[in-house]
């Protein structure tokens, strides 16, 4: 969990117009790989790019969707589905995450300011 004393670092990653609806992109923010998604409703979501079930940095290449009202992202490797709101793993496909990884994704706050996409990367450092 995020410690209370965490320092928030706001980083501009790209222009909002660079994002295509439903097509994710990866961003490298201070050595951390982040997957960014612009959804149908225009909102932008950011989660860790690391897929905890395959140990590969590929979440940005997954398929967006919804489960009920929750926007989701599916891993392109083993198809686990995660909430883009909470990062919670909604469908594990009956698999365990790789050793050392939590099943849920870290979620990063995103803001769009002046046409720029800004990520708040909360560093535990």
């Amino acid at each position, binding site marked *: 969990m*995020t410690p209370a004393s965490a320092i928030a670092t706001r980083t501009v*990653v*790209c222009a909002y117009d*660079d*994002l*295509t*609806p*439903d*097509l994710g*992109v*990866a*961003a*490298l*923010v201070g*050595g*951390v*790989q982040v997957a*960014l998604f612009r*959804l*149908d409703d225009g909102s932008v979501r950011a989660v*860790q790019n*690391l*897929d905890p079930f*395959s*140990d*590969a*940095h*590929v979440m940005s*290449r*997954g*398929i*967006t*969707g*919804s*489960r*009920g009202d929750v*926007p*989701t992202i*599916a891993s*392109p*490797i083993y*198809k686990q*589905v995660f909430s883009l709101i909470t990062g919670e793993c909604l469908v594990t496909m009956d698999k365990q995450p*790789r*050793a*050392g*990884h*939590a099943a849920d994704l*870290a979620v990063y706050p995103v803001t769009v300011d002046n046409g720029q996409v800004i990520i708040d990367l909360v560093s*535990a450092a």
Partner: protein
Amino acid sequence: MGAEKVVVVGAGMVAQRFVQSLRAGDAEGRYAIDVIGEETFAPYDRVALTSFFSKAGPEDLLLGDQALWDDPAVTLRRSTRATAVDREAATVSLDTGERLTYDHLVLATGSSAWAPPLPGIDLPGVFMYRTLDDVAGMQAWVRERQAVVGRPVRGAVIGGGLLGLEAAGALQSMGATATVVEFADRLMALQVDKSGGEALKSLIERLGVKVKTSLATTEVVADAEGRAGTLRFSDGSEQLVDVVVFATGIRPRDDLGRGAGLAVGERGGIVVNDTCLTEDPRVSAIGECAAAAADGHLSIGLIAPGNAMADVTAHRLLGREEAYLGADTATKLKLLGVDVASFGDAFATTPGALEVVYSDPFSGAYKKLVMTDDASTLLGGMFVGDASAYAQLRPMVGAELPGDPSSWILPEGAAPRPELELPDEATVCSCNNVTAGTIRHAVNEDGVHDLGELKACTTAGTACGSCLPLVKKILTTELGKAGIEVSQALCEHFELSRAQLFSAIQVAGLTTFSEILERFGTGHGCDICKPTIGSILASIYNGHVLADDRAALQDTNDRVMANMQKDGTYSVVPRIPGGEITPDKLLVIAQVAKDFDLYTKITGGQRIDLFGARLEQLPQIWQRLVDAGMESGHAYGKSLRTVKSCVGSTWCRFGVQDSAGMAIRLEERYRGLRSPHKIKVGVSGCARECAEARGKDVGVIATEKGWNVYVGGNGGFAPVHAQLLVEDADEETAIRAIDRYLMLYIRTADRLQRTAPWQAEYEGGLDAIREVILDDSLGICADLDAHMVHHLDTYEDEWAAVLADPDRLKQFTSFVNAPDTADPSLAYVEERGQRRPATASEKVQLVGAATATTHPEEN
């Protein structure tokens, strides 16, 4: 308005059913019900009486929901006997001295055990077998005698019918020995024929029960202490016994009716009409005490007709006129663990009836089907020892039995049984008289989707349970038909199956996911429906896989036109039709592999896979391949992979046709064709089959005269060899057949369903498919052909198109904010001169702390 008073005399199973049925339909409380029961128990399952010995106590035999008896509209009087009915006054007198008035009287007094008037029948140690009290008394007696005689108690059952065998089982479970004495020449003479009786006897004897048939008991002789001690028989023989159970039949308990002046049948039973009404419009009789017109004014000793009468009467009171149609005397029993079933015209009394018999005294099975003289229609049947086919066959009585009748009676697996589709009016649960139509209605109209709900809703299978397998099957079939089953609906966003969606999209002419979702689905879609629709759109319109809004529909593989490997890099697989490659192209591939340090492997699909390309490298790599004249191999797509071939007649001394040429023609024809799953094709130049074409979805094998086309082969979990579709066809005919086969598959298969299961599940199987594509039995061949022509006309290499489109190239970047930086988490080790992804432990050594920082928030 005060409730009308219904008095039910008798508290057996039928009474219970009547009350239940009446209460279920009487929400407004028109009726108040009094039930008068002699026994101390609420109605219990008399059919299961024998299980009294294996179960904890009488409570376990109680019927239905006991809350029924807490219903304020229902009053159950236990240990109370009705002594007289005064029809003038409309009252019933009870042995408690009470007198109940009624608006409607329902007689459900059932039957009593009947024993022949033999000398000694009243000796201690002689029992009847009818009520829980009988059974409890018998049990106490056996226990007591056991303790005294210090050896197993010798038991005998007089009567070898259904009850007699139950009683024998009861004796055995009490630890007594049992001999069944039957007057007729066989056991269960009413249900089974001579051979069946013999089979039954041998099975029963194997269980340790002795059986004596064709023997009349003349006397029960007392021992020195005045207990039942010896049985004496008509042939002069004798048998020592400690306990005797009479199960010689039942008689309707019609004395109340008689006393009230109601008409009684020739062999007993209160005469009722088709609505179970006696001559007195305020008095009904149901169950074993009734002699219904539909049964020829005979009393029937089975539970199913009793339940039917209860329903008819309850419904009449509720204002719905129904007729009692007479008893279905079909029976299926498990007697001492032995299956016995008989139904329909089991004794082949229909003129010209044929009997198909299978008897195997070793396994103990005796099975018989009775058919009409043309062997087409089922009339009845008899099963002893193995009644597994009963549930499916009984409802087919009077209907045409498809296939070879013997397949139903031969041992499991000996001959395949045809699939049955029951007519709506066929009765499935005869205990509760539930038809196939009722079950279907519950599934289709009432939204019942699981067996538990279905039982609750229709009461099918809630009595004896023998029909449950059939009920379940109907449920599954109906769900399947309605596409209701979860696996049929694509996902939570689409209720349609892939095949339905395919038609819908095609008919509606929709071309984008958003339109389709709006029209046919809900929500935003997901990783299941998006690629499926992407594939359908590609199949129908064959536009670029990244055209319109389709890129976001695709799996990453289709989206970046490469196959993702475990570390997130991709494999690059250029198409090499038929495996034939010019040295120049070979050199280009090798050079690319070298330059990008790609792991290189020749595959069974007869091409060369290059592994380890990063997302941002893909366009550069493909630029070089496309420049050299190569194109996408679609290794990433649910589409044609490769057409494998041997070298064929051009080089091989055994080849009879140019298999490589044919393979290349096929590969170039079907390349890029999107389908429910990947498609593999093989072409062999002779029957030696070096291309292993029969393991492919479509296999083409050269013959002296042309080509044989095989379809539906499959490797994988359950390998299947492809089956012959056409023989000795010329090239054009072979290709046309394959065109149509693939198109039909693409249109009608489920998501991720390969050709083998599709073909197996296609209604009518391969024969039906053959009719569709060769004889145009559905009249869609022109459409299928046109569709394939459209595919051919519009094919373009996906990679060449992407390379020419800067917009689409945008997505091939590692990081949106650092497009030139490679994924820093990738790590490799060298093995056999090439690189491979490092294992987790190797990675720690190689990347060390650097990797650790790329993993945010590890707990």
